[in-house]
């Protein structure tokens, strides 16, 4: 395939051209309640071409190989058009690479029959359905196996296989007219064995859904809070991570000014890092979709902005180095600046010490949706009232509203136990990224705005 791609772009008259071909094998199984609703395995593929000519940069996606020549012509036309519009784009220099990567999987799902995957899904589904007062479940097994081939006119030639797996969904508890749901999920980029023997996750979430039936609505107001690792991760991803993506910053001059490297943005104990090289996390990959090796990138060091996430084009715009974060959802999409794994680094105290330090407030756990950038809004799945450093009654209906810069400054402390999400789906523009990992420790933040239903 790499040879074929080289041939397809060999005669293109441009300053730079690259082509990516991807074959995607996907298995999706789903159950709603006791019923199997979906069971399908599919193979599909497609091409993305990009050209740079006289400062104009453009991309075209196509499905069929016979349309690639037309796509290249369209891309050249787009580049010419952008050049005539006055653009002077260029790409950060990177060394040409030839490589072929296969992940070291702890159980290759391709070797496991679909019937075994259905059995695994059904087992977790039944675990939840048999808990008292559980009225329904909605659970999906998703296996995405992508083989990507990337060739550029600079001599880069890379094949990389990425295998992402998750089982996720919702569990519903009902008593009378009261209905509560809890999101549940496990995921890995490390092979199917990581999804086996995880019963405790599903039992815990089913019990939680039931407990929420009797939890009280939180009262809206300003609280000192402790975010658990999942909520910390969501904050870091949604608020700080997206604001660190250079393509979103480049035209937003006021925000760009606020996000100048070296600016003190937060409490001096806050350290945030993007690292897609961690092999067993869902956001793992070796090369981005521009053929750039991804590197661990410290974004915030001791509260001071230390880096940001780049494509080759945005790296030039900011006079910084490419970081390997230009990633496409799949074979139908052009690459854009993206996070893989992002996390807030742990502190030194224990969770109990953190609770004592806060004394009173709310301990907020897990996330059931949210969005944001500089301003954010997340829903916590559940929470507890904390009084005298002790965890008390459960509360629900919790939404957190905040501002990135205020929140970073209001971080008081964090504990020493870090956890990653295991699953993560991130939407940016029209693209969904299923390889979006996030995490952190439990973090004590003062004066957060909490909205109750």
């Amino acid at each position, binding site marked *: 395939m790499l040879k074929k791609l080289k041939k397809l772009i060999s005669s293109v008259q441009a300053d730079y051209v690259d082509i990516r071909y991807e074959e995607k094998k996907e298995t999706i199984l789903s159950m709603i309640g006791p019923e199997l609703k979906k069971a399908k395995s599919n193979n599909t593929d497609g091409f993305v071409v990009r050209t740079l000519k006289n400062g104009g940069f453009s991309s075209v996606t196509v499905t069929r190989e016979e349309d690639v020549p037309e*796509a290249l012509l369209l891309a050249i036309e787009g580049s010419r058009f952008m050049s005539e519009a006055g653009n002077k784009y260029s790409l950060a220099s990177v060394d040409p690479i030839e490589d072929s990567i296969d992940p070291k999987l702890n159980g290759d799902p391709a070797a496991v029959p679909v019937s075994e995957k259905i059995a695994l899904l059904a087992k977790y589904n039944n675990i939840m359905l048999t808990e008292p007062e559980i009225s329904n479940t909605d659970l999906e097994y998703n296996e995405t196996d992508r083989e990507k081939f990337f060739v550029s006119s600079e001599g880069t030639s890379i094949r990389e296989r990425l295998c992402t797996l998750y089982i996720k969904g919702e569990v519903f508890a009902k008593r009378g007219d009261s209905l509560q749901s809890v999101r549940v999920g496990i995921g890995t980029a490390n092979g199917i064995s990581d999804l086996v023997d995880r019963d405790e996750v599903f039992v815990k979430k089913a019990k939680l859904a039931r407990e929420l039936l009797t939890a009280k609505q939180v009262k809206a107001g300003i609280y000192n809070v402790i975010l658990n690792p999942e909520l910390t991760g969501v904050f870091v991803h949604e608020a700080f991570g997206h604001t660190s993506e250079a393509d979103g910053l480049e035209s937003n001059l006021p925000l760009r000014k606020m996000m100048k490297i070296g600016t003190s943005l937060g409490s001096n104990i806050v350290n945030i890092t993007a690292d897609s090289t961690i092999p067993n996390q869902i956001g793992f990959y070796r090369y981005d979709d521009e053929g750039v090796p991804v590197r661990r990138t410290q974004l915030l060091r001791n509260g001071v902005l230390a880096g940001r996430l780049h494509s080759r084009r945005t790296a030039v715009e900011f006079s910084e180095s490419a970081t390997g974060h230009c990633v496409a959802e799949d074979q139908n999409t052009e690459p854009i600046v993206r996070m893989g794994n992002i996390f807030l680094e742990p502190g030194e105290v224990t969770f109990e010490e953190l609770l004592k330090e806060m004394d009173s407030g709310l301990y907020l756990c897990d996330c059931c949706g949210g969005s944001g*950038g500089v301003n954010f809004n997340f829903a916590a799945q559940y929470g507890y009232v904390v009084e005298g450093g002790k965890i008390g009654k459960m509360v629900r209906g919790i939404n957190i509203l905040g501002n990135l810069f205020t929140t970073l400054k209001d971080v008081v402390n964090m504990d020493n136990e870090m956890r990653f999400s295991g699953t993560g789906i991130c939407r940016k523009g029209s693209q969904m990224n299923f390889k979006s990992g996030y995490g952190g420790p439990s973090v004590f933040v003062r004066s957060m705005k909490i909205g109750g239903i």
Partner: protein
Amino acid sequence: MEKLLKIAASKGCKAEVFSTREKSVSIDKTNGAVTDVSASIESGVSLRILKDGKMGTAYTKNLIDREELVANALASLEAGVEALYDFPDAGTVTFDEDYDESVEKLGFPEMRKTVDHLGELYGEVKQGILQVSAGCGTSEIRILNTSGSNLVQKESTVYSVGSMIYPGTSAGIRNIFLGKSDAVPFEADVKRTVDYFHASLPEVEIGDSRMKVLFAPESMYALTWRLGTASSAKAFYEKVSPLQNKVNEQVISPLLSFVSDPSEGRTGRRLFDDEGVKTARVPIFENGVFKTVYNNLDYASKMKTNPLGTGFRGGMWGGDKIAMSPAPSLSHASFSKGNKSFEEMLAMMDRGVIVYGALGAHSGNILNGDLSIGLNPGLYVENGKVVGRVKDAMMAGNIYEMLSKAIAVENAPHYTDSMYSNPSILLDDISVVGS
């Protein structure tokens, strides 16, 4: 496609082939500079087979090996997903009233003219970021099945968008224009939005209180997601809907009708849904009374009722029509227009907020109708005038209670990025938590 259908039928299956072909180009301009041009040429084929009360599916974007696709669908059939329905016979129909062949020839130069013109209309905007974009595309959906349907629906779309982003934020307000042949902007709409943008530049701290809230079309999805999730046959079949025993009951304000009508719109109208069922006007709420549980072939058969032509491919976030299976969908539903102009509604607001952007709209207990969103942006109104935008404010409540407090509905719908239009809705006495 016929060959594929034949191969599937030769295995003793009833079969449906759903295929798409799409072409599009787009241009983005930020603060006067062209920042992105892109194009795509895509196609795909999805196969669904039925045999002995079971269903199998398979898809590919690149139909090279028909036998392999059928083999994948047969493997899927083996898993035993129940299917108690049959494919409809809708005959042979081509619907191309929303297709303008000339759009096939539009490219970057024409879209450049559109964004340049739009940029001129927003010329007064000097603060924050001005983003203008334009695009065009054509698409064709074909549905073939062994019951005899051979349906083709072609459409073309040209759109333009002008967005004004507040300084130092990612929040803004915008106008969207679209049509099957062109996207001529309505200058009065642009002027009004530009005026509101300028008036709302100052941030205002409002504290906590109850006030009037006007949902602009851009944020209406926060309400319609919840209505759609609860009124779906899926929620009823699973007995988890809060509307379970409320058919023909007054649930929300009599001012509000929420209707699925794929025959409405400036483009993208549909004679058939994605399963080949004839579409119709389906009132979900009529004058506030809950009327209809919408379905698709699967849930119609499970609930022993007729399919309503509301089976579409795509989820809450849209998604790939080829990869996704048909499900009950309100992708063509909107609130019916009312009898007040936007200005009249604004004049009704002694104190309130216009919700242009809903932060966290997909969070929380959506099925229950719980809603807790950041107002991003929320335009603050005093004595009928926009006087700023609220700082760090959120609203929370349950949509059924909120929508029972509707006091006015706009007399004109506006397009949003979901490509479906809604009027603005004014609600009274809503809790807003400010800074």
